[in-house]
């Protein structure tokens, strides 16, 4: 027993000494992070002092809304003397930031510290999400999939089940096809005074909430996953030009148009957070979105739904019900390539600390989890019980494809955002016209570049960290 205590004390001394040694390395280093005010950062921001205690480096996190954040990052990246050493990166931005050399290549650092960061435990697609031409430019802080959230309590209600079966001829269950999804949306759209699960509604209840706003291309964030679920692609693999006017894209636009009738009346202004708000306030029957905000549906302090009902989670529907690769995304941390060597080392320490498996588990256990990307956390039975969507996150990423990562992503997001929004608003008559307009505008920008360059931009080279 005495020797055990002695060993424990010696270990404690060693850990403290190691920590003190670390402290010497980064004492006096000040890092600033340009970031979003969302769960991938808001969970970490209040505890950054712990990092300073550990390493001596002081970190200041400046949080901004998503719309306009890429503008700030681009301006920051074009400055010769950066104000921010750390940058929050949405994975579609790696193309433009990678091609312009704005982000530090993390490949060698990750290889060096592979064991420490439990590289084998991270879902490979989440790392692939952050690569540009095979080089890792950012490290996941939150791993996402696009999936459906639904009212499990309503779907399980016997009266609702019977009424649904009578009307549509099949059982009420999470939709596997978009036609089923639209049926469910129609079925649950009810006016105030009507009955829902045996109770009279005090206000209108909607079958669905999707993002239709053009602001920051919000509508594209729902349109592209639906397009993907029909088997569509962003780019023509032969020419590197826009392929987002394909049959799959038209089918996706049609799904969104048909869903309009079952959305809240302000659907054209639904941004990500306003749309998820409807689900969180238990005012819609289903809503498909990025899992980054799904965690809120499990927390009564952040959503009404857990107090009045129960959320269920399932993979995204597809065109005909046959499996399609899940659409993934990653919200990540990157290092400004213009930071000094010491700042880069300190920034990498911060990334390792803030995205570590221990930190992610801590968030999950504290009840303020983020959308996870460590296999061991997502497969933990206790955590799966606490966060039922973990199972969907884990299982769907066996067959997954990354989001768009093109250097012209901002153009795609904005142009398709406006054209799709105009179509949904009835300003453009047909989906063909809207998508053709958008593709023409994108292609005008792309055609000035040689074909081999365009093809390089759409090539998803496997991450070199796995070599």
């Amino acid at each position, binding site marked *: 027993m005495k020797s055990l205590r002695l060993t424990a004390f010696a270990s404690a001394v060693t850990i403290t000494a190691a920590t003190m040694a670390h402290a010497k390395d980064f004492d006096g280093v000040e890092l600033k992070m340009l970031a979003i005010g969302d769960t991938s950062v808001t969970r970490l921001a209040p505890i950054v002092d712990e990092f300073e205690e550990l390493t001596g480096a002081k970190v200041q996190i400046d949080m901004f809304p998503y*719309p306009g954040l890429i*503008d700030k990052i*681009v*301006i920051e990246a*074009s400055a010769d003397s950066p104000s921010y050493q750390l940058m929050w990166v949405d994975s579609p931005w790696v193309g*433009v930031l990678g*091609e*312009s*050399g704005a982000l530090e290549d993390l490949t060698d650092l990750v290889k060096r510290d592979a064991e420490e960061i439990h590289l084998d435990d991270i879902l490979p697609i989440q790392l692939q999400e952050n690569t540009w031409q095979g080089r890792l430019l950012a490290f996941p802080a939150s791993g996402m999939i696009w999936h459906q959230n639904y009212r499990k309590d309503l779907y399980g209600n016997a009266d609702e089940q019977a009424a649904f079966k009578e009307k549509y001829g099949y059982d009420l269950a999470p939709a596997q096809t978009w036609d089923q999804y639209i049926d469910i949306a129609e079925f649950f759209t009810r006016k105030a005074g009507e009955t829902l699960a045996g109770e009279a509604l005090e206000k209108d209840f909607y079958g669905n909430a999707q993002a239709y*706003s*053009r*602001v920051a291309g919000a509508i594209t964030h729902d349109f592209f996953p639906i397009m993907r679920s029909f088997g569509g692609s962003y780019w023509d693999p032969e020419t590197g030009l826009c392929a987002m006017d394909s049959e799959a894209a038209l089918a996706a636009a049609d799904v969104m148009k048909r869903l309009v009738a079952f959305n*809240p*009346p*302000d*659907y*054209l*202004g639904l941004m990500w957070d306003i749309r998820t708000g409807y689900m969180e306030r238990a005012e819609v029957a289903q809503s498909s979105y990025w899992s980054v905000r799904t965690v809120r549906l499990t927390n009564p302090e952040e959503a009404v739904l857990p107090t009045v009902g129960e959320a269920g989670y399932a993979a995204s529907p597809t065109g005909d019900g046959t499996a399609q690769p899940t659409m993934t995304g990653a919200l990540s941390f990157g290092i400004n390539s213009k930071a000094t060597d010491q700042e880069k080392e300190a920034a990498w320490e911060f990334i390792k600390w803030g995205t570590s498996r221990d930190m992610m588990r801590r968030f999950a256990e504290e009840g303020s989890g983020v959308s996870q990307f460590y296999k061991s956390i997502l497969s933990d039975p206790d955590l799966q019980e606490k966060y039922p969507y973990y199972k969907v996150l884990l299982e769907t990423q066996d067959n997954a494809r990354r989001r768009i990562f093109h*250097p012209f992503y*901002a*153009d795609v997001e*904005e142009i398709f955002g*406006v054209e799709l*929004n*105009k179509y949904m*608003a*009835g*300003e*453009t008559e047909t989906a063909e016209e809207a998508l053709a307009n958008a593709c023409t505008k994108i292609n005008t920008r792309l055609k000035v570049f040689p074909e081999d360059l365009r093809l390089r931009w759409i090539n998803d080279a496997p991450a070199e960290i796995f070599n």
Partner: protein
Amino acid sequence: MAYIRKRNRSIFLIFLLPAILVLFLTTIYPMLYAGYLSFRSYDLAKPFVPRVFVGLSNYQNVLTTGDFLHALKITFQLMAITLSIQLFIGVGLALLVTQRLPGMSIARTLLLIPMMISPVIVGLVWLFLYFPELGYLNYFLSYIGIGPISWITSPDWALWAIAIADIWQWTPFIMMGTAAALTSLSPEPYEAAKIDGNTRWQVFRYVTLPQLKPVLVSLLFLRAIDAFKIYDIIFVLTKGGPGDSTEVLSLYIYRQSFTFWQMGVGAAASFVSLIIIVVLITFFFKSLNRDPMQS
């Protein structure tokens, strides 16, 4: 004497130099640089895009794509709505607050408040009022059985929603200018009109309005320049949407420059809009200098 004049001129130049320097750095140089950019391809986000001289292609891009012309149309629509209503209400309020009635000085002060608020704050205030689910406007309208109206998310309403916010903020400007002019009008023509037995409307139409015309034209001219450049309120309320139903010129220029990062195209669009505004100013000046009696 000549020596003193020469010395004075030197002193003037020394005193003027800081102002000239500031003017050059803040106005002339940026304008010259924007002019230079308008002939080049320059993408701030994509340094790999060659930064070369492209001649007039940025101007061609601006003038031949429908987006610029659409933005111009929306800008003029918004100007027509806001200026006409502001003029109508502003003159009416001016007539009211210049009456010798109790509480008019307090009313005048209160009515000036919107004009003193930053347009971004005005946008936020109206955003809360217009917000579809939680906004006060729909809440009050529901009591009289109207709505809910999708103020800022419907293509039919969005431009009107912006116009209402702009009218709320800038009508006091017309009111203030008109009220000042009303108090300085000479009383003789009114006495003559009274003796002739004119009605109140006839006095206003044939005595007050002609005298106010130069002031009203000046006020409208100033408001027109401001309305042509409207940006903040729209950025906060709709960001140009839904669709492109509220995309005015300033927003179009912003999108070209800071969303697509095509600084050259943005600069060319700025210059085209500068030309339009100069033509507008010339037109207004000409109408201002026209003799009211002749017209």
